[in-house]
């Protein structure tokens, strides 16, 4: 193929190596990636002693992140290592920050030392070599520290491009006050969920069981839980198929809810959304385990009303969940002080920082914390004293394996509302919307030099 020849001519050696490794690694699981990381770690010049030295020498690093509990971590870190100054900058949430980061990388200046990158976005940054392979800094030795889902998410083509900061196994968050008022049973299956959506909206036309105005992350997570694997990625060969059975399970259910106008047409994270969560007009959310902290800080009016239940299942008695969001901390390739940055990364995601973040309400990706009885038995006053983490930790262990995102998921998600969004505002069906999304994403993949599997 023409692409292959051009690649051979123009690709940097490093990229070729990583892609070849990727082609091998993706047939295995995180194990293959881990060993590649180990090999890199062995040859790396950065040891624990180097890191300690960097911490003692001190310096200043800039961290771009929007995760609220990092603030405490930064304070603790600076108290422990007084010579290090950490500038925590909120450069926007999600895509806004990626835009800023890509901007800075492109411009070659103003690049932060550490950046928060969600799992779905990491492959794109890794492939563009915008973030550093942490194997060279010793990340390969961390095998087994994190739960398998997030740990495999930070592996891209044999390299480790971030350390998992949190994870987002999904659960059903619901407003118990509203559910009790309208005598609704907490749905255990999606059929019950649809039935509850209908009776709630009938009883109170202003209330909805949940909101959805078209959200790429939510849609892909729902397909993930349904056992769908629409994305197939093998090195630089990608395929997208939204006609597969998992996707169809989801579209059949969700089309029914859209047609019945049973979903609040409110964009997540908007002011309307927070208001709706507080006043009971949005009575539930199927969302990642990082949500408690957001509810506590953003929806003060909901205190004592919200509860957490396992994610509704496709089959009664089933135990399948998916990850929704969650992010890693990565080190931009152009960052000025990588050793010090890695020291902070390790502190925040592996060492003391994890506990500080858990205490602040974050949901960890480390097995030690997830299994900790203290973590599981913690009672959340906001949730009326419920042991929320028990439900969430169980969900973490039930994540369906084998999911993968596209290596250009950031772009794909950005055009989700151009295509699938139509299903929420017009007579276009979800199925047709997804087909349009598939075509547009594949077209982009082809333009970017990927081999597209038809």
């Amino acid at each position, binding site marked *: 193929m023409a692409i292959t020849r051009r690649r051979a001519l123009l690709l940097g050696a490093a990229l070729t190596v990583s892609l070849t490794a990727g082609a091998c690694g993706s047939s295995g699981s995180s194990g293959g990636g881990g060993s590649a990381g180990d090999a890199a770690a062995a040859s790396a010049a950065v040891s624990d002693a180097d890191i300690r030295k960097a911490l003692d020498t001190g310096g200043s690093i800039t961290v771009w992140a929007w995760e609220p509990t990092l603030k405490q971590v930064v304070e603790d870190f600076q108290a422990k290592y007084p010579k290090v100054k950490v500038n925590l900058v909120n450069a926007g949430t999600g895509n806004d920050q990626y835009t800023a980061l*890509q901007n800075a990388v492109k411009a070659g200046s103003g690049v932060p030392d550490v950046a928060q990158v969600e799992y779905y976005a990491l492959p*794109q940054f890794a492939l*563009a070599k915008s973030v550093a392979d942490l194997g060279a800094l010793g990340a390969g030795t961390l095998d087994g520290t994190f739960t398998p889902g997030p740990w495999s998410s930070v592996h891209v083509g044999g390299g480790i491009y971030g350390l998992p900061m949190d994870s987002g196994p999904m659960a059903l968050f619901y407003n118990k006050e509203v559910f009790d008022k309208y005598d609704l049973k907490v749905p255990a299956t999606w059929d019950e969920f649809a039935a509850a959506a209908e009776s709630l909206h009938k009883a109170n036309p202003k209330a909805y069981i949940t909101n959805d105005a078209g959200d790429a992350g939510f849609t892909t997570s729902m397909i993930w839980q349904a056992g769908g694997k629409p994305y197939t990625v093998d090195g630089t060969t990608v395929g997208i198929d939204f006609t597969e059975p998992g996707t169809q399970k989801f579209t059949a259910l969700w089309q029914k809810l859209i047609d019945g106008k049973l979903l609040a047409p409110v964009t997540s994270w908007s002011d309307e959304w927070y*208001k709706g969560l507080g006043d009971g007009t949005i009575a539930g959310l199927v969302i990642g385990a990082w949500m408690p902290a957001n509810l506590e800080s953003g929806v003060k009016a909901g205190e004592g009303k919200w509860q957490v239940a396992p994610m509704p299942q496709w089959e009664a008695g089933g135990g399948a969940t998916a990850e929704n969001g969650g992010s890693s901390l990565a080190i931009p390739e152009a960052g000025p002080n990588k050793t010090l940055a890695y020291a902070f990364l390790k502190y925040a995601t592996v060492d003391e920082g994890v506990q500080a973040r858990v205490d602040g309400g974050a949901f960890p990706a480390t097995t030690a914390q997830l299994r900790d009885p203290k973590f599981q038995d913690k009672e959340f006053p906001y949730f009326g004293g419920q042991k929320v983490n028990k439900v969430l930790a169980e969900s973490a262990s039930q994540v369906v394996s084998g999911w993968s995102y596209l290596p250009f998921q950031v772009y794909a998600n950005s055009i989700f509302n151009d295509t699938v*969004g139509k299903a929420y505002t017009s007579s276009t069906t979800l199925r047709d919307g997804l087909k349009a999304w598939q075509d547009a994403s594949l077209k982009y993949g082809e*333009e*970017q030099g990927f081999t597209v599997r038809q």
Partner: protein
Amino acid sequence: MVSEGYSDVRGGRAARRRSWAGWQFVAPFMAVFALVFLAPIAYSLHLSLFRTRLIGGTSFVGADNYLKVLQDPQFWSAFGRVALFLVVQVPIMLFLALLVALAIDSGRLYGSAFFRISVFLPYAVPAVVATLMWGFMYGTRFGLIGNVNEAFGLSLPDPLSPDLILASVGNIVTWEFVGYNMLILYSALRVVNPSLYEAAALDGAGQFRIIWAIKLPALRGALLIATIFSIIGSFQLFNEPSILKTIVPNSIITYFTPNYYAYSLSFQGQQFNYSATVAIVMGIITMVVAYLVQLRGMRKAV
């Protein structure tokens, strides 16, 4: 012509030295001009001739990007949208601005200074703030529209739905820029010699006759300027849609306007080369349209 005369007298060498002195005076300006004006354009042109891909790196593609833009349905859809915006919104806005300027200039307005400043004030509000504010008002659940619906039992159409969003953006832009255009027109009216009005009054002309025969002809130049500014503004529409995108992602598609399309291409799609091409093509179209309007305006003036 004058300098040629001098060089004839003083000879070539003197002329060369003189021209160096001139360059030295302009040098600071030229340096800044080259740095902030010419260099970015040159860089965009350079970018537009290449293609960088996630797999395969950068390669020279000549005019491929330009051919692609010309056949890109998304680009033309975006262009059609701003063209419609231009044809509908700009006349409305300029007509309102004209009306306000004439009203203030008539001298018959009570509290005209207050009126003038309050019409101008929206221009001083940053576009981001203005758009957020209107976004809240447009809301059918908690916003002004929602309140009106509730109070009167109506069900007004959602101004943020895909069908109405362009009109809603037009309303925001009109609100923002009527005051600005009013100021351009009003200052043109202020330089009209008052003796013309006196003469007209002596001849028995009424207010409407004065507007028609004196004020409007006097405004032609200013109207032309305001029109050209508005054409450029319409073609470059970006702020308002990009803020509204966060509130109603389904209504503002990634190719809502050419500028927003260029933005999405580069920042979400990392297609910097194609994005630069879109920007250049749009810049050329804008220049051509603005130039045609100017030509037509000048021909009328003669």
